[in-house]
């Protein structure tokens, strides 16, 4: 494998894993549900996205084109916001606790 690609793959891998970890860390650490929602929807999704990209590069460099992994990213990007919205709606429905300094209010629908 060409070392440039190898380095790129390594970087993407580390970056992706780091994002995934940060997203999960946010999920663990942040004080209320609505804040925790941000971690997974963005960081984790992108983390996995860059891992997938790394994989595509890796397999392409190995000789077998592995484009289809991109579909996973596409799918995740398509669905993550809807999941987040659904969960937020559910959270509003069940009146989860939120930190007091939150400006504004969730809806009652």
């Amino acid at each position, binding site marked *: 494998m060409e070392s440039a690609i190898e380095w790129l793959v390594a970087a993407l891998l580390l970056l992706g894993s780091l994002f995934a970890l*940060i997203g999960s860390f946010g999920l663990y*650490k942040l004080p209320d549900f609505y804040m925790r*929602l*941000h971690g997974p929807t963005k960081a984790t999704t992108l983390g996995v996205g860059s891992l997938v990209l790394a994989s595509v590069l890796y397999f392409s460099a190995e000789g077998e084109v592995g484009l289809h992994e991109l579909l996973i990213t596409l799918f995740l*990007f398509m669905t993550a*916001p809807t999941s987040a919205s659904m969960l937020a709606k559910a959270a509003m429905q069940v009146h989860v606790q939120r930190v007091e300094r939150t*400006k*504004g209010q969730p809806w009652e*629908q």
Partner: protein
Amino acid sequence: MTVKSWFPHPWLSLLLLVVWQLLMNGVSAGSLIMGAVLGLLIPILTHLFWPDPPRVHRPLVFMGFGFRVLSDILMANFEVAKLILGPSRRLQPAFVVYPLDLRHEFSISLLATTVSLTPGTVSADVSQDHRSLLIHGLDVPDERELINTIKQRYEKPLMEVFECSRT
């Protein structure tokens, strides 16, 4: 039989054709034929589920929008990572009601999706009259600025692509 009933969702067909090439891990005569067949058949099979498809009026603008969102996503992540790793006590979370100009369900969905994928915001809900979007921000020092950014960066182009008749 009209062309429409045989070819109800041209964009979808195109998307499916592309997806099939992705699934097949490359482009070949066989995969193109199969992709085309599926791209035609599946929309016919499922068009009842999608009675009111969106119309793309300006594909180029849409592509530009796409790239912008992609880059924003990348940025958003660094932003959020910073916020997460930093002391959470300093964060100023907020629920922001964003007034919508978009009307079509699909384009509103697209906007909401975009908002969720980009810096520090998650779209939590759409009002039942489809006139406003409830956004939760992880750290919102200024609501107005947030609303403005979204309007300019995302809603406008979407307006152009999907609802140009109205602008």
